[in-house]
């Protein structure tokens, strides 16, 4: 990040009296108030129409009524008239019913995948931030590469490798680890979890790298000079200083994982590994279950609000620090 911002980025001009003219006042006069709101208007209107209104619409559909005549769901726009029966039946389904299993499974998969992501991602981010040296540019380029390879292509790569006659089974049989090919793609939870790790670990490494890169090396040297072992330096200095990166990285990695439905469709294609995302995708696109789908979307969003809010808050804090 550039650290050369000379002008107070908050845009607060400090009024200085030059020959009796307040510079601040003069600035205000020549920057008409309407210019900036006018520039912001089209984009803001766009976001209101295509982001805020659709989200309100989902609530209107969840609180709406099934129209039996046309086999569709009619939204109700007045929040005072919303029916809560669909939402509460969906909630019952989550607590002790058909949605319970997929919800629990989603949490298990996401937590397992996140843990593996940290085991892989932290050492990598640490190495590139501390010891990247001359190769840092190359390493960063390679770390960024997965972002620009389509997620679906990366999954396609693994589906090919994990086929019965794919390279993975070939290698395992060659080394006599397994006698006959393993059906990796046949509804196995660990294949799905590893798929999630493969898909999302780059999202974790970048914020971790940014946080570790900001740590002042002199602090680590001071700790070493005071006779602290490398391990305790790591636990007592590096780890606490990278806390913000850890939490922000966990949030930005977990958010898409919670909404994932394609990874497990491609890598297992079995209802045994269905996640919340699969339930939402099926319910929303089926016209007779849209009320249920909309309610599931609301439940998921409410569950994730904490993560979303934390991420926005922490990136805001980080931006302020950099400035």
């Amino acid at each position: 990040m550039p650290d050369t911002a000379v002008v107070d980025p908050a845009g607060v001009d400090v009024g200085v009296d030059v020959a009796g003219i307040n510079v601040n006042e003069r600035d205000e006069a020549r920057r008409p108030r309407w210019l900036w709101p006018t520039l912001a208007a089209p984009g803001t209107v766009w976001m209101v129409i295509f982001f805020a209104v659709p989200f309100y619409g989902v609530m209107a559909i969840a609180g709406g009524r099934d129209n039996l005549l046309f086999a569709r769901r009619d939204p109700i726009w007045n929040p005072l008239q919303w029916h809560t029966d669909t939402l509460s039946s969906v909630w019952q389904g989550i607590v002790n019913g058909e949605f319970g299993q997929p919800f629990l499974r989603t949490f298990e998969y996401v937590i397992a995948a996140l843990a593996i992501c940290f085991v892989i991602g932290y050492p990598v981010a640490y190495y590139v931030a501390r010891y990247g040296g001359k190769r840092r540019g190359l390493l960063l380029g390679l770390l960024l590469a997965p972002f620009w390879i389509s997620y679906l292509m990366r999954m396609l790569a693994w589906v090919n490798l994990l086929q019965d006659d794919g390279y993975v089974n070939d290698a395992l049989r060659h080394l006599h680890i397994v006698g006959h090919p393993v059906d990796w793609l046949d509804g196995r939870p660990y294949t799905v979890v590893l798929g999630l790790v493969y898909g999302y670990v780059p999202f974790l490494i970048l914020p971790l790298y940014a946080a570790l890169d900001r740590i002042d090396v002199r602090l680590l040297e001071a700790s070493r000079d005071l006779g602290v072992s490398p391990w305790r330096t790591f636990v007592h200095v590096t780890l606490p200083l990278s806390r913000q990166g850890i939490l922000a990285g966990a949030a930005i990695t977990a958010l898409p994982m919670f909404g994932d439905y394609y990874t497990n469709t491609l890598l297992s294609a079995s209802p045994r590994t269905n996640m919340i995302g699969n339930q939402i995708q099926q319910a929303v696109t089926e016209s007779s279950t849209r009320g249920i789908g909309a309610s599931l979307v609301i439940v998921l969003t409410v569950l994730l609000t904490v993560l979303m809010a934390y991420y926005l808050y922490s990136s805001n804090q980080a931006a302020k620090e950099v400035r």
Partner: protein
Amino acid sequence: MTQTAPRRSLLAWWRNPWRKPHFLAAITWAYLLWALVPVLIAIQFSFNKGKSRSTWQGFSWRWYWGDPNLSVWHDATLHRAMLNSLWLAGMTMLVCAPLGVALALGLTRWRGYGQRPANLLMLLPLVTPEIVMGSCLFLFFTTMFRSIHLGRWAQLVGQITYNLSTVVIVVRGRLLTIGRDYEDAAQDLGASPAQALRTVILPLLGPAIFASLMVVFATAIDDFVISQFLSADAGSETVPMKIYNTLRATATPAVNALATVMLLFTLTAILLAVFVPRLLRRGTGGSSAVADFANLDV
């Protein structure tokens, strides 16, 4: 230091805080191999002579144009998916450019009521899971706002909504490093606010705008969830959807070939995003816009 016993020297080696981090280096390179080699193998199979996507049968261009029915060049569904993806990404870029740059300028400079809610609204798509956005827009277009039908125009609206924040974040990052000095100088010399904007700020923002658009292009071309939710039929099938729909069924290496061609488009966009601003801004230093993008997560 004279340490004769091998065990002690091993311990000393372990405790030496200045020893080379071989272990970390090994993990890092192993990770990078694991992350990238599968994709290289998928590219390799796009050149397979036979129909298998998992057993190598020799090199050929069959799946690119050799096969008269099933190759990317000859199979209408494959190149239609490619054209759909390119159209979607290109149009998204064209609409996001003016909308996003204006929004970035407005949100950065505007002090007053409404600035904070507008800013929050702009940031929300960054943290909203795609499935939530996809479902919301799907229900919006199917039950509320029926004048846009599902299909390419709905997909376009979805991609613009999803990608607008990227342009704003990258452009705003550059705007904050430029500061207000140049603009003030221009106005001291008699330029009107609009003139200062057009002749001073916009040219300075050029590299960042260009880079953000390349990032938008690469994101939109690869996006799956929103495009899938808002698609109508085979006519609005994009490349990621094509991969998704055929992968576990009847896919041939032609799908690998299609994915490889799209990867070339994406990588071209990203390389342009990295190097063009660097050429334009030679000598003035500053971080590249892709680095700004990488720091989105800060």
